[in-house]
């Protein structure tokens, strides 16, 4: 699934680094606890989260997350957007909650992240 597909399914606004929506998303991880994101095997994943903090972007970069979806219309601050641009991690914002966003993407064929 491409990031463009994700944005369409979630009726999401792409608010940072919109240049390349053709990147491939292999799986998804829905979490607010950053250690879980680091614990699960999440390279090439999409992170679906309700936490809007700069360290979400840093966690994403360290874990190899490809893109982040903020749920429930939570708007990240300018510091987060700037950091995401710098790290080239596209950010999507959706009005859906984490459950609905996960449900729609799963129904469209996106698997969960592997974890071991």
């Amino acid at each position: 699934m491409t990031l463009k597909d994700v944005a369409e399914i979630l009726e999401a606004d792409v608010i940072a680094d919109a240049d390349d929506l053709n990147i491939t998303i292999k799986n998804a991880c829905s979490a607010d606890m950053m250690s879980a994101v680091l614990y699960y095997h999440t390279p090439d994943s999409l992170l679906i989260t309700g936490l809007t903090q700069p360290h979400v972007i840093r966690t994403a970069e360290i874990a190899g997350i490809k893109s982040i979806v903020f749920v429930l219309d939570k708007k990240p601050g300018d510091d987060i957007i700037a950091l995401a641009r710098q790290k080239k991690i596209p950010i999507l914002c959706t009005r859906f909650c984490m459950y609905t966003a996960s449900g729609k993407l799963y129904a469209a064929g996106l698997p969960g992240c592997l974890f071991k």
Partner: protein
Amino acid sequence: MKLSSIVESISLEVKTGKNNLQNDVTGVYISDLLSDVMANSKEGNIWITLQTHLNIVAVAGLKNLSGIIIVGNRQIQQDVLQKAESEKITVMSTPLPAFEVAGKLYQLLNG
């Protein structure tokens, strides 16, 4: 849908509150942030989280949630289970990650 149907269809392990399985589930909420759950979950929702802190029991009780699904094979401390049992909160566990539990429930409830 009754809690028991959900337990059965996605093979949840019921840890506490086995007497509440006939309760109706009004919807699903996922979050690991307790303030978020306090603000946005609705009565009768089933709550999906990997949070295992003692306070999850209080949140579920205050919001009258129908149960808590702990994902990702997380170990749950004994004091949390004891509190949940005494407060009659149904705590369930699964090895699946939150995204997949959500996906399966979404198909079950909205599909």
